[in-house]
């Protein structure tokens, strides 16, 4: 009986102790993450978007003249790649050096090559993105390209044409170029983009600063909740509004209408948003902006 009593006490103590630890973990671990994410959520979004944009931005830089978006799609999908090769083939004729075998090989080998090329580029792209921060990228690109070319050796003629000129300028090796088209595309894109393509936080901060400066929220509202306005904004590449900002938050009270107008007015008055760099246009062409004055008018 006595043992039972002791045991009970022991169990009780241990139970309470465990419960306390668990409760503590519930509160301390579960409660803390909540406040932090909102502020950090922005950078995370930016990074993911930038991944896409790197590719897109690279496309931009490559053509220089037109169609940044289509290039992105091409990279993602196999068909566009074929098209590019076809166009390049024409150029090959001019080059004349190695292309002769290409025409025959195309139909049979083209598809398998492309698939390989597609699957590999992704890995490389990822590797590149990871390594982007380091400048030595070009070297890596050179180093890695050789590996893929070995396997798809036959396709070389087709791929060469794509960016033969660029490749020729940089290197003398002809075969490497074949596998290199896909690789080079990402690599070359990655190089110029790596440093500049990512929309920087300072750009966003500058935008926020401009808007905060131009935004004159109705002050002294009794219920500031009504003042929170969410606006979807589409920009033109020159940093001006592409269309009237679309207000997402609903609200029909005079106060929310006044708040809505003040937010839209800030957007109009802040144009052009020249702190947004054109090379990052893909990222900022559409932004969802929340105007929330509650922290500034708490208790007036």
């Amino acid at each position: 009986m006595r043992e039972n009593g002791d045991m009970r006490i022991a169990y009780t103590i241990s139970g309470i102790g465990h419960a306390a630890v668990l409760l503590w973990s519930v509160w301390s671990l579960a409660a803390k993450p909540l406040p932090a994410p909102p502020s950090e959520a922005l950078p995370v979004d930016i990074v993911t978007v930038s991944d896409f944009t790197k590719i897109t931005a690279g496309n931009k830089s490559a053509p220089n003249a037109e169609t940044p978006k289509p290039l992105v799609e091409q990279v993602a999908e196999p068909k566009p790649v074929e098209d590019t090769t076809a166009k390049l083939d024409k150029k090959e004729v001019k080059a004349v050096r190695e292309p002769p075998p290409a025409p025959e090989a195309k139909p049979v080998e083209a598809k398998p090559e492309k698939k390989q090329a597609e699957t590999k580029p992704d890995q490389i792209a990822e590797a590149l993105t990871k390594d982007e921060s380091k400048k030595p990228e070009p070297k890596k690109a050179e180093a890695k390209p050789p590996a893929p070319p070995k396997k798809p050796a036959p396709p070389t003629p087709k791929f060469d044409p794509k960016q033969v000129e660029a490749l020729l300028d940089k290197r003398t090796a002809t075969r490497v170029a074949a596998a290199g088209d896909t690789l080079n595309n990402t690599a070359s894109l990655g190089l110029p983009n790596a440093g500049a393509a990512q929309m920087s936080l300072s750009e966003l901060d500058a935008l926020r600063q401009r808007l905060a400066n131009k935004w004159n929220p109705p002050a002294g509202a009794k219920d500031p909740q009504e003042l929170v306005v969410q606006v979807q904004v589409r920009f033109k590449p020159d940093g001006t509004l592409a269309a009237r900002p679309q207000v997402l938050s609903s609200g029909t009270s005079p106060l929310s209408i006044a708040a809505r107008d003040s937010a839209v007015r800030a957007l109009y008055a802040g144009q052009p948003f020249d702190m947004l760099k054109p090379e990052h246009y893909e990222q900022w062409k559409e932004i969802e902006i929340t105007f929330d004055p509650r922290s500034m008018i708490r208790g007036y």
Partner: protein
Amino acid sequence: MIEPASAASWHALSRRRLIMLGAGAAAGTLAGLSPQRATAVLKLDVTSGNVQPIPIAVPDFVSVATQDPAAGRNVSQIIASNLQRSGLFAPIDQAAYIEKILTIDTLPRFADWRQINAQALVTGRVTQGDGRLKAEFRLWDVFAGQHLHGQQYTTTPDNWRRIAHIISDAIYERLTGEKGYFDSRVVFVDESGPKDRRIKRLALMDQDGANVRYLTRGDDLVLTPRFSSTADTITYMSYGQGDPKVYLMNIETGQREIVSNFPGMSFSPRFSPDSQRVIFSLQRGGNSNLFVMDLRSKATTRLTDTQVIDTAPSYSPDGTRITFESDRGGQQQIYVMAANGGQAQRISFGDGAYSTPVWSPRGDYIAFTKQAQGRFAIGIMRPDGSGERILTEGYHNEGPTWSANGRVVMLFRDPGGNSGPTLYTVDVTGRNEQLLKTPSYASDPSWSPLLQSRF
């Protein structure tokens, strides 16, 4: 022998509980840690703004067939002056205007107005015919190039000032989201004559100081005039012969009526929000208590029964509570109680004495006079006593009264010496303090709600 079994079951139970508790805790932890889903559209939070007066352009209204060729200009000038006094707008100097508004039937050239940084533009027209005055206005958002508001009013020509005030209110409400207060009046005690023989008369004027009119001749001493919610009646205290009494007066007809014909001194009257009752204090002996009288049945109800001085009652805008000052704690402090009396709760706890509480028509604040260290301050606090803020402070400030929208407080200030009191307005933020010009010294202002009669 039963015990071990029960102990065992207890163990089992407790274990199960603990496991469940642990599972719950784990789930809670996981839920807390689960990452937020990332979305593709770039998002941005703007949590601070630049609160400043809205730059607004108010070009002269177009006058059509008006007796006074400057009628349009007069209206627009009153509007600009109203907006400027509110502190929320910054009318732009007419000299800077590029486009001259000759008609309101075509779109203004927004680029011209954008260039002088106007965010809003008011155009209007005043037309006279058949002895009637028609005023129309349009409010434009310059940057968005958008029509925000437009309205027209018809009245007799001598009401042109009110039209300007009403248009001001419409602009104010559309751009700030809050009701305006320009179409309102102020009743106050006009003080003239040398300091030792002051003549005090009840006077009425527009909110901007125009159209001053005297309601009494100055034979009797008058104090604490207060507007009813219908803005056509006031209640006030008057010292004629004998004890001070509480009166009602219709400001349109001038008709007077005595409210409290009791022995003793009745003072500090104020209307209930529905204007059906008047609450006041009645002094008998050394103490004063709060009473309320139904104006139709004349039935009087006692609200407090103390041996101290309870006075300066003011209803909450919903009529369910009353705030008043009392020295029941040894010093004047502000209390809140239910409208039918009962337990009162003290809400003022700062240093010094608090008096003359006035509930904001918006319900969110109570304005008061605070006396500490020989200085008088006007401040506001929430009805629960929190958020106390001093709006203005000085040698002598007293008698706060609220604008119709609860955004502005009017008070009177006496600098001491041989001069007399003058009226000031100050924003609830404590900014934008402005002198309100009166013909002579003025005290005890009471600000009316928005006028209801539409001409």
